[in-house]
Each structure stands twice: as C-alpha cells, then as structure tokens.
C-alpha cells in the first residue's frame, strides 16, 4: 500500500480493490460483508430502528477518541436511545486525495474496536477519493439498523413529578474539541466522553427501569435535550443547578470562553427521564459505569414548555436552547 491515498484508489479498479481489501475488509470482516454483493441481505425477526449520521469532526484525532470511534458510537448511540440493540451498520467514507494511509488504518481500527463493544457489524460500505481541497481530510457516514428491545421511549411522554438524570458529568466532548482547536492553545488533561451507550441502556432495561424518555446529549448539549422534552411534553423542567455534574476543567474552559457546560456537545452522555419511583435504582445502575451520574431535574407545571435553573441561593432563570455559532464573549 502507498503511504498516501491517491485518486486512483477511488477509481473502482485495481487500486480501489487494494484499498478496500487491505484496509476495510481486513478490519470489518464478516460473512455478510464478504459476499461483496450490491446490497446486504439481512434477517430480522423484530421491529427495527434505523438511523444515519455523518461525521466531519476537526481535529480528526483528539484526547480520548477519533473520528472513527465517533462514527460508530454516534450511530449506535442513536439506536440505543430508541431502545434498540445496534446490529448492522453501513460505512461510507469520502477521503481527500493525499490523506495518510496510516491515519486511515488507525481510524478503521478504532471503528472495529467500537463495533465489538456494540456487538454490531458493518454489512456494506463505499469508498470515494476526491481531489485535494474537496473535503477536509476525511468524512464518514454510517447508517445503522437495530432491533427494538424496549418500546415506547418518547420525548412526548413526560408527566409532572418525573425525575431526570444524566449518565455522567457533562460537556467533556465539546470542551475537549474547543481546547484542541487551533488558536486557543490550552493544555488540559481533558478527554472526550465519546463512548458506546448501549451497554448502559441494556443494564437499565435488564433491571426493569421504566424508561420514559432517553436522548444522547450531542450537539446542543443537555440544554437542547431538556428544552426539546419540555416543549414536546408540555411540561416545565426544573433543574437543580448545584446537582449538575461538571468536571473542573470543563467548567474552567466555560469560564474562560463564556460558554455554559449545559450547551456543550457530548458524545457519550445521555439524559434519562424515569418515574420518581425508579430514580434511585436508575441512579445506582448508571453510577456503576460512571460515578458522576446524577439526578438533576424534576418535571413540574410552573412554566410549561420552559426549562428553569434553580440556583442554590434561591433564584430562578430560564435555560434557553443554544442557538447559532458558539462565540466567546468579547470582554
């Protein structure tokens, strides 16, 4: 294999075959993929969930993860959030001419590792190489199919008196990416939270937790999830600000740049709504994976469709939906 990806490797001919066989098939090998047919033929016995996501993150490699891990977690997590067990994924890759083959192999290895955690397989794929400057190094799209093992999860079902939990401390991914971006020059020990969430969802289901609503807090962060739920269910979500778990380094970056951790992206953190009776049991289960998991909010009817933050000194304010580009304050 050449050191860098060439346009010829996307031409459908011999070089293309080498790239597919030596990089992708080698890592993703399974019976369905090996058929090399125009489409994968799948057996399903239950209801299925299906989702797709494209990944364009910059930088490609960051503390605690890379675009490969992200591309599997992201799609598998979306399935898990609908109570579905991730089973089959497709993987479509657009590579910029000249991209390092070694880095591509590293990305594919990350994907393989994360697929194993989800017990899911790649059943179909596509590779394109485009001229330099047409994409920013590499873009990955994955589409996933999962078997629904728990039905009825919906953002429309929240009622007064329910409890809302987060599965771990929030904002780590967003803060890590900001710290790694050019021009800021922070040195931190921060790591992204990027992780596959199905194992935790399975633990909740296996322990008979009544899952009312479930959402991974990706772009827009926890603030976006809570606002969507408050609107969809016509309830007020009252957050106890002091109970929100935030790492010091994440809070520090927020202070410096004028952000709120609640609005920062996560890649391995979910928000869960359960009836009050299940809150302690759900918390214990979540804390087995992350001891920072916490109960952060309850649902009321004080300002329907709004999210309210209650401070420890007795004041209240709205927690708004983040909008536009995240821009630092001027002074």
């Amino acid at each position, binding site marked *: 294999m050449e050191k860098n990806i060439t346009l010829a490797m996307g031409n459908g001919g011999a070089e293309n075959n080498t790239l597919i066989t030596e990089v992708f098939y080698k890592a993703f090998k399974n019976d369905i993929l090996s058929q090399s047919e125009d489409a994968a033929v799948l057996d399903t016995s239950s209801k299925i969930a299906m989702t797709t996501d494209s990944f364009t993150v910059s930088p490609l490699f960051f503390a605690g993860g890379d675009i490969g891990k992200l591309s599997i977690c992201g799609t598998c997590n979306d399935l898990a959030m609908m109570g579905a067990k991730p089973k089959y994924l497709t993987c479509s890759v657009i590579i910029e001419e000249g991209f390092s083959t070694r880095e591509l192999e590293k990305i594919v290895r990350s994907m393989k590792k994360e697929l194993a955690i989800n017990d899911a397989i790649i059943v179909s794929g596509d590779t394109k190489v485009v001229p330099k400057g047409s994409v920013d190094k590499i873009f990955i799209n994955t589409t996933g199919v999962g078997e629904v093992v728990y039905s009825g999860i919906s953002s429309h079902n929240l009622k007064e008196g329910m409890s809302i939990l987060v599965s771990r401390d929030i904002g780590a991914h967003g803060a890590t990416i900001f710290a790694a971006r050019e*021009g*800021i020059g922070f040195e931190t020990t921060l790591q992204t939270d990027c992780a596959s969430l199905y194992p935790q969802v399975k633990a909740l289901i296996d322990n008979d937790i009544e899952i009312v609503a479930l959402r991974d807090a990706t772009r827009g962060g926890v603030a976006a999830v809570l606002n969507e739920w408050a609107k969809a269910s016509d309830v007020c979500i009252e957050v106890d600000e*002091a109970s929100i778990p935030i790492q*010091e380094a994440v*809070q*520090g970056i927020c*202070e410096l*740049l*004028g952000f709120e951790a609640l609005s920062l992206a996560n890649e391995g953190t979910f928000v869960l709504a359960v009836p009050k009776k299940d809150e302690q049991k759900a918390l214990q289960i979540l804390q087995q994976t992350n001891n920072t998991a916490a109960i952060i909010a309850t649902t009321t009817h004080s300002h329907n469709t*709004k999210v*309210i933050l209650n*401070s*420890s*000194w*007795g*004041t*209240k*304010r*709205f927690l*708004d939906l983040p*909008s*536009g*580009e995240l*821009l*630092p*304050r*001027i*002074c």
Partner: protein
Amino acid sequence: MELELKNLYDDFRDGDTLKAFAKIIAQDAAKLDRDINIMEVCGGHTHSIMKFGLPQLLPKNINFIHGPGCPVCIMPKERIDHAYILAMQEDVILVTLGDMIKVPGSHGSLQQARSKGADVRFVYSPMETLKIAQENPDKKVIFFAIGFETTTPMTAVLVDQVLKNNITNILFHINHVTVPEVMKELIDSRDEHVDSYNNQIDAFLGPSHVSVIAGAKIYEEFPTKYNRPVVVSGFEPVDVMEGISMIVKQFVENRCELEIQYKRVVSYEGNLNSQALINKYFDKVSLFRWRGLGNVPDSGLKLKDEYKHLDAEVVYKDILPLDEIEDHKLCICGDILRGIAKPPECTIFGTACKPNSPVGSCMVSSEGACAAYYKYGNLLS
C-alpha cells in the same frame, strides 16, 4: 496554596454568602425612605445580574438600570456597514472578536458576508491576526477593533507589533470607546437633541476589568462633581452583591464616594504600562456616534495621525460611507441604553425582535440587555 482556576469563581458563587449579602442589603435598604437606582454600566454586569438572578435577591426599593456598556450594542449601523464592505473586498481578510460577526448592518451581518464568500475570521486574541497576516502575504488583513478600555490595550499591542516588525499587510478599523465619557453623557447630556436624564441614576456600579486597565481614578469626578457614588465591582455574583451593599451603605451613612469592591485586582492607578501604550498610539475623537445615544464627546479613540497609513478608515475612505443610519422606528434600544426603559417595555421584544433575528442592537450581543432578558427571563417571584 497553589491557585487553581476554580478558585477564581467557586467561592464567589456561594449560595450562603449571597443570601447573607441579600440580608444585609435588605436591612440597610429598609432604613431608606426612597428608591435607589443603580446603573451597572457594563454589559458584562448586566449578563451576570440576569444569569444569576440577582434582582430576585434585592428589596423593592433597590433597582438596576442597565447601562450602555456593550461594545457590539453601541456600534452604529454605518460602522457595521464599514465592516461588511471591507470584508467583501476581494483581497481582504476581516478579523474581529466574538459577537461582532452576528450584528446586522444595512447590507447584512458579517456572518452573511462570509456565506457570500467573504473571508471573515473571529479570534480570541488580536495577536492571532499576526499569524493570519503571515500566512496570507497577498491579502490585506484588517483588524476590526471593538471594545472598551478592556480590549484597547490588546489592539495597542498589535499596532506596536505591526510597527516594530514592519508588517505591511495589517490595517486597523478602530471602534474603541471609553466608559467615563458616556457615563457623563447619561447624567448630563450635552447633546441638544437628547434630553438629560439627570434624575434617573442615583449611583454607578463600575466594571472591574475596565479599571484593571484604566484604574479606579477614571471615576474620580462622579462623586465630587456629579454627586453620584461609584463602586468598582467584580463580575461574580458575590462581587456584584457586595458592590450593591457598599452603594446602599453609602446612602444609609450619607456618604458619596468612589470605592473599590474588587480590591483583589483593581488599583486606583490601574495598569500604567497599558495606559502608556494606548496613549502612544491613540487619540480621542471629538465626537463618536453611539447607537441609540447619538454623538458623545471625547468617547471614542482613533489611531494618531502619524499612523494613519495603518488606518483602514483612511486607506479605504473612498468606499466607506459616512452617512448616519437610524434604527428601526419601533426599536427602543436608545432608551434602554440610556437607562430609561427596560427590555419588556418594548413592543417588539420577544416577538419581532429575538436573538436569532434581532431588530435592535441590544438583542444582538449576548451582553445586550434585551438578549439577557430574553435568554434568562426575569423570573421575579
């Protein structure tokens, strides 16, 4: 003890301390048979006050009046048009800070200019402009400088670097403004078209970061000449509450003084090196037009004449319009910036005018009073 980042804010958001200050303020305010209207001049203070819900902790006779200290909010439309026009030039990279890229001018915002192909960058530090200029030797890199005394020194350092290193492709569009001059204008307007609001403001909460640079001395004449107490205060909620309590105490004890709450950083003299650098490169402009306030004497800065070859307003004078552009008729940002109206009194607040489609300047920047009210609500119990 090693200082950690969290030491800079943790204790200053302590619930018990805040409640204790609320109690002291309530006890003192009960001794007064009048209202006290305190203007927090700075948009950063407005943001803190709303974010931490401080009006909910104050007795009925202590009120905040939100001042004009938001650098993006006070920028008149014609100057935003300058930024847009410069950004649309083929060979120009326009560099600016944060929120500036969202403000709509008469042609659109810098964000929209960017989507039409203009090269607009926002930076965390003006020093990043040096790198951009180095990487783009064929382009003119224009630093669109905004802000009060807090951001002026960074622009001065950039000017200094450009001159010392003979960098030929960086120009400046200067929109720096100063706090004390506009405070005087608010108390004692000398513009015949603008009424004087002499009796509205009883005291000022001065922004600490401005005084880190310029010193507390810039407020010296307010207690003596204008009979208005000034307390220079930090931005954390405990700082603001302590600042308010110091102001209320002055009224209880019949004092009228300049005091510093933020003693951990602010001195009377300020940062003399910064002041020297600013004085080296900048002159005051006799009139600077503030959005909503009109012309305010001596409140703006410009590059000194000997550096006019760096001044984009001079170099590009043929394409930059000078006509003043008025705001939308229904928008009351002018009254809000003068402290005589609050955002919810505006008929288009939250309806036609929202953060993602702002009509007036106070809704544009996250530091604007309207944006703060919209974002955090004013959930008085």
